[in-house]
């Protein structure tokens, strides 16, 4: 065993933190509501994100009811339908996935996994959640505003986003949407500073970057990306607010509306698309990278095998993060861009498939000849690999300009991005909740309900999105309220749409069972103990479960090894925790604690 640890003792956090440095809650309010403890903030973030996510789930039911059974539901007018798809998309991408991965899992796991007492700026961290909550409330308020929420599509393309023909365009809807997004970005920036600086500065002794679990790598890189990408959305939102409120013409060209010339002139809708997708494409990886990281840890732990190609996994995460900033225009192939421009972006898009494919191979090779436990987290992790590969392959279709042009704005695109950045990351979120719920509560989630949840969700997701590819290939456009009597829409296509809708309702119901399980197991779940999965990372080595404030008792752990020492030959157990000094003996101070 080579001893290659660095000798430098630079800026190591002290093993013991003086009592005064830790924030101590004084009352019920400061302990559970206005808490500065990252773990409480994590649960607040997750609860809010899941709650607003359920709204988006209901919206998706309504969308599918209209698509599957057009003309049956009178209350789903074309305006309402546009509002549903807009809010469904925006909530799922920004307010659920981003908030849950970074605000939820980031807050809970980063300090525990790197061996810190808390985030480095706890007060700012608390503010981050409250600003996020405010953003969600402003978003919800738009449902009750006169004219309802905006129906501009989740991409909010001008000029239609702020013209009177679009629901909410000349009413409060679009204003509340933009205000909510700006609040979200401000709140996220506060949290993001915490996640990045905590990883940089608050790692415990021995936790070098290359010993960090891939979960932390994924969340860290995604946060850096989000900090640099969200300003683009912010800029787009401010400029659109100016156009809408002050009558500037950043994005608005000269327009005639209902026979009247509008005051606008000279602006560029394409400028908005550039700004939006400069945020929008990194956003895909902001959601995907934490999922990549978490799923690596789930697979390694539940296959009792070290992750295959750890270094390559780290490089791939960093490489994907950097590359994702120069692929944005592949969302704009049909915007009339220069063909050479499109060629450049098609090339970068295909290059980014290389590190992504490396990761997929490494997950599969980690499973290869592993001691695979088909526990719930593992089932969801495998489900992720399958759906992600599926969505990734259709990404190759859409990344090529010539194939994208006919497929653009069809249901094929909808199926592609739901598979790759909807279903796949959600699979990881479920797997991660089944995996870390015991640490958060001290109890296991119910296995039977979990099995039901997994199989219905996994098979159901395929039942929804696999046929949807075909619907798109036939030529059914997205964002259409009703297909009408087009010749290419056959009877069988209508029944396929109905089938998809029924599958969507069933999958939605499975999520209700999952929600029930979360509450039921809180009380009746099996006691889990501190480390039910026999995992190596530091969050499982805390003296208390759930960890109390300060995380690690009197002494911070010292890290002696990387996060993936499973099935080490000759070791006393089939896993060696990161703070296990085997084959040496623990120093006296460690042994005493």
């Amino acid at each position: 065993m080579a001893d290659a640890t660095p000798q430098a003792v630079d800026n190591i956090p002290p093993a013991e933190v003086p009592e005064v440095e830790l924030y101590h809650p004084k009352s019920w309010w400061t302990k559970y509501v206005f808490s500065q403890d990252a773990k409480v903030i994590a649960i607040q973030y997750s609860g809010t994100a899941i709650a607003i996510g359920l709204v988006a789930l209901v919206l998706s039911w309504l969308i599918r009811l209209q698509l599957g059974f057009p003309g049956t539901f009178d209350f789903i007018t074309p305006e309402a339908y546009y509002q549903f798809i807009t809010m469904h998309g925006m909530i799922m991408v920004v307010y659920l996935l981003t908030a849950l991965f970074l605000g939820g899992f980031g807050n809970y796991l980063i300090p525990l996994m790197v061996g810190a007492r808390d985030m480095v700026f706890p007060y700012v961290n608390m503010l981050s959640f409250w600003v996020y909550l405010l953003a969600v409330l402003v978003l919800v308020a738009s449902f009750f505003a006169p004219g309802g929420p905006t129906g501009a599509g989740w991409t909010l393309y001008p000029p239609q986003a702020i013209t009177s023909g679009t629901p909410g365009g000349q009413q409060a809807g679009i204003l509340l949407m933009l205000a909510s997004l700006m609040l979200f970005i401000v709140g996220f920036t506060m949290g993001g500073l915490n996640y990045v600086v905590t990883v940089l500065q608050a790692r415990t002794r021995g936790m070098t970057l290359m010993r960090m679990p891939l979960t932390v790598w994924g969340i860290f890189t995604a946060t850096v990306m989000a900090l640099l990408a969200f300003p683009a959305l912010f800029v787009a939102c401010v400029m659109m607010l100016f156009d809408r409120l002050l009558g500037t013409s950043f994005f608005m060209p000269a327009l005639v509306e209902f026979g009247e010339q509008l005051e606008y002139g000279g602006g560029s809708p394409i400028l908005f698309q550039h700004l939006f997708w400069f945020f929008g494409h990194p956003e895909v990886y902001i959601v995907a990278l934490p999922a990549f990281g978490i799923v690596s840890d789930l697979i390694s732990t539940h296959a009792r095998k070290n992750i295959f190609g750890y270094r390559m996994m780290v490089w791939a995460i960093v490489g994907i993060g950097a590359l994702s900033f120069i692929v944005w225009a592949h969302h704009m192939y049909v915007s009339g861009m220069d063909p050479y421009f499109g060629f450049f972006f098609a090339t970068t898009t295909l290059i980014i498939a290389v590190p992504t494919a490396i990761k997929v191979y490494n997950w599969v090779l980690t499973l290869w000849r592993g001691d695979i436990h088909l526990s719930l987290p593992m089932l969801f992790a495998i489900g992720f690999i399958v759906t992600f590969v599926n969505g990734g392959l259709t990404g190759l279709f859409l990344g090529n300009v010539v194939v994208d042009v006919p497929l653009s704005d069809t249901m094929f695109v909808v199926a592609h991005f739901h598979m790759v950045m909807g279903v796949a990351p959600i699979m990881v979120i479920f797997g991660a909740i089944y995996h870390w719920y015991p640490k958060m509560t001290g109890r296991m989630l119910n296995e039977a309900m979990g099995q039901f949840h997994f199989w219905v969700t996994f098979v159901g997701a395929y039942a929804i999105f696999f046929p949807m590819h075909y619907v798109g290939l036939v030529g059914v456009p997205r964002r259409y309220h009703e297909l009408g009597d087009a010749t290419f829409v056959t009877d069988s296509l209508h029944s396929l749409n109905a089938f998809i809708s029924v599958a969507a309702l069933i999958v939605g119901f499975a999520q209700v069972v999952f929600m029930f399980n979360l509450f039921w197991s809180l009380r009746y779940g099996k006691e889990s103990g501190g480390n039910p999965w026999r995992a190596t990372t530091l969050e499982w080595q805390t003296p208390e479960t759930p960890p109390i404030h300060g995380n690690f008792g009197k002494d911070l752990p010292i890290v002696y090894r990387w996060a993936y020492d499973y099935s080490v030959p000759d070791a006393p157990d089939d896993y060696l925790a990161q703070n296990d000094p085997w084959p040496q003996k623990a120093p006296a101070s460690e042994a005493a604690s």
Partner: protein
Amino acid sequence: MIAALIFLAIVVAIAGWWLSRQRLFSKPWLETGNAGLAPGTEAINQPASKVGLGVFLAVVGALFALFFSAYFMRMEFPDWRTLAMPRIVWFNTGALVLSSIALQMAVVAARRGRLQALRQDLLAGAAAAVIFLVGQVLAWRALAELGYFATSNPAYSFFVLITGVHGLHMIGGLIALARTAVQSAGGEVTERLRTGTELCATYWHFMLLVWVIIVALLAGWLNEFADICRQLLV
């Protein structure tokens, strides 16, 4: 998006330089730390607040770089007319430079433990920054009186937008500066006060840099640069 990409390239270069010193080629599966030694984490040898400010400035930089990108892209349209800068902007620039100098002097005073000088420098810096902000309001009014309205010239819209966002950042900085000034009312130069002063000064210098770029951009000095970039892209 050329300005944003240039900014990103700088960030990537810094991040890459830092990552290159993090032993990314090490083989963690072969390493086991010796229990007798406390292995380092190779964290940056600076307080978390300074690292935090650095990360925050990267975010602010991205924000302004994107505004600049939008400015360049909007410039290409035929209704564009370069703005005649109101004279007071030059006065404001002077005030901001003085403010930055005062805060730099405050840093020196804090390092030498001279409390009285520190207080004076902090107040001078804050006063100059307030003068800058008042001057900016006057600049907006001067442009409005010249007959520029939001709808008439996109360059004017950008002037209001970008200097407005810069002004908001200055107000935020003034709040932080006020907190530091309150701390300086105590009896001695504490570690916390010194760090706070340094953070304010760094933030001020950065906002000055952003301001200089904004002025160069709005005065049209960067138009040739934009032309070169456009030729590179096409």
